């Protein structure tokens, strides 16, 4: 099966999709240390449903819905060397979460995402399947460090580990590789941005057979400019709808001319955006970039929405991109 991507206004997703009941069951098994055949079957069932929904919506570049990952940092911490998982930490009221703890030198031990990518690709009806990795700066920010005592050391070792994963993914044929760095916009100071840049250099430097993407959202994206534009990144995936596309003015100011994955769906709001509304968003993006460089997608992962809402939003998004393409033709 092969699928020809449209040459303009390609649609995609950031990664996560609402968890299916099978995924929730799988999390419970994983928590008990049970990663046997039943666990694998549940994860695959959930992944299949997520991919099917993305296909049903008509997305061009898919993702696996991250049905295996209950937490985007803990998941990688459990697979990389050098991490343990903390005792519960309170987040509000009497609600707790566990954080990764760095207790040794961080290293890549085995393939983490390749098998899931292969499986999801096999369901994708020939459409490209994106892989998402939780970036080094975010892993550092969301972990406790008991070993390094030095942000840069942690981040660069994480980047080295991810480089290995990315190389394996590239050899397996993955084209769209996305580093998620939501923490980068929360409290990154200039020195942090520079370290993140070094990390991207390690992860993506000299790779020319993949589409190098980063997703960053919320917080203060503006603080990452202009340094971030020099990172070895082909496509910047930003949250823009939530802040009424203000970010586009900033990008214009910096003469941004790389590929932009434009957030046109608010993932924190259950209201389904109308096709016209999304088309207006796309029009905003087209003021900045030609349609070949503009990808259309939600602001962020969809996991916090109800499945029906997520699907309805995506369907309108695909419709809007289609109509915008017709208007351009």
């Amino acid at each position, binding site marked *: 099966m092969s699928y020809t991507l449209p040459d303009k206004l390609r649609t995609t997703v950031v990664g996560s999709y609402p968890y299916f009941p099978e995924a929730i069951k799988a999390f419970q098994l994983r928590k008990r240390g049970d990663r046997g055949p039943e666990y694998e079957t549940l994860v695959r069932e959930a992944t299949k449903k997520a991919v099917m929904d993305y296909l049903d919506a008509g997305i061009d570049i898919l993702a696996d819905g991250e049905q295996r990952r209950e937490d985007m940092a803990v998941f990688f911490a459990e697979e990389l060397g050098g991490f343990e998982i903390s*005792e*519960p930490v309170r987040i*509000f009221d009497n609600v707790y979460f566990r954080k990764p703890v760095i207790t040794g030198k961080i290293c890549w031990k085995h393939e983490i995402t390749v098998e899931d990518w292969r499986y999801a690709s096999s369901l994708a009806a020939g459409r490209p399947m994106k892989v998402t990795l939780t970036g080094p700066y975010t892993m550092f920010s969301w972990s406790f460090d*008991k070993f390094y005592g030095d942000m840069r050391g942690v981040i660069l070792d994480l980047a080295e580990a991810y480089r290995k994963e990315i190389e394996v993914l590239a050899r397996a044929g993955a084209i769209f590789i996305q580093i998620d760095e939501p923490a980068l916009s*929360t409290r990154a100071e200039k020195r942090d941005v520079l370290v993140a840049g070094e990390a991207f250099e390690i992860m993506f430097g000299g790779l020319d057979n993949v589409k190098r993407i980063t997703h960053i959202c919320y917080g203060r994206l503006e603080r990452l400019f202009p340094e971030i534009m020099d990172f070895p990144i082909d496509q910047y995936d930003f949250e823009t709808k939530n802040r009424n596309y203000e970010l586009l003015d900033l990008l214009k100011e910096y003469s941004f001319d790389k590929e932009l994955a434009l957030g046109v769906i608010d993932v924190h709001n259950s209201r389904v955006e109308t096709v016209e509304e999304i088309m207006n968003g796309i029009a905003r993006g087209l003021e900045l970039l030609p349609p070949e460089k503009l990808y259309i997608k939600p602001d962020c992962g969809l996991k916090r929405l109800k499945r029906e809402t997520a699907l309805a939003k995506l369907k309108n998004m695909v419709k809007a991109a289609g109509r915008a393409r017709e208007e351009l033709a």
Partner: protein
Amino acid sequence: MRLHAGICGSFPRPPALRKAFDDLSEDRIGEGEFKRILMECTRDVVRLQEKAGMTILTSGLLLWHDLFRPFTRGLEGLEAGRLIRFFDNNFYYRCPTIIRRIRWRKPITREEVQEAKKSSRELVKAIIPGPFTFLKLSENRFYASEDELLDDLIEALMAEVGALKDSADLIQVDEPSLVDPELGRAERLRGVDIVNEFLSRLGIPSDKVVVATYFNLDPERYATLLDLRAGLHVDLKSTPTEADLALREHVFDGPILSLGIIDSRSIYPEDPREVVYRVKTYMDSISPETLIFSTSSWLDYIPYNEAVRRLDALGRILAEAEVRFI
């Protein structure tokens, strides 16, 4: 100079209490049983502090979901609203929402402070949210003027402090908003005025009150804090370079200085010798009658087992300081 060690505020809830909260909310236990577990855990946490060598103890604030919750529940006129991020932490508080006139009815935190006092021979510190931070982080849906609001709020907090006077050796007024980077200088100065007004109306000697700030210390903000007419707690770990400059650039001549030198948001091991060495280098610009070695802020940001280790480090810092400061 007297040396002390003590945590800044809360201690993480012990596993038994975590469970008791869930059991209570799902009706597996009643209020009485919950209370019994709460008091038992309070005693445990007090003993842990004592055992680690703390000389100023808190109740651990085990019942406090956040800085305001006992007060949003215990004061008249308030309710707990939506969850809001507490400064730049992955921790959320429920916004105190003012829906009627604020009034103090009965002691809110006295019981836990009394329990701490009964369980130990060391000094006990009681904690209340300060009026400025309360004002800044709450939502007013009732008062037409902020002055009226503040007046009632200050009145209510004064009544609570009045109820604590007999059991607490030290009162800590938490005012993290005084160093909030989002606030401009004018607002900060107004904050200091509000807190000073509160302190003067409290009428407690300045060596019995500490105003606690945490996160985001820098020289400009620190200079403003020096006008407070009370002891001061500052966080030296959240912005270490700026905080270090602050302490060297400005002279502190208040009665009590509490230095948050153990990071309450990290679990990276601290070297007691290094910490004491660093604090000694501040001695040119600080000369309080009482110097307290403390955690940078509350300990809710790390797991219980790690907080126990933090306590231990603080105890070793005091022991080291007692040798080095002579």
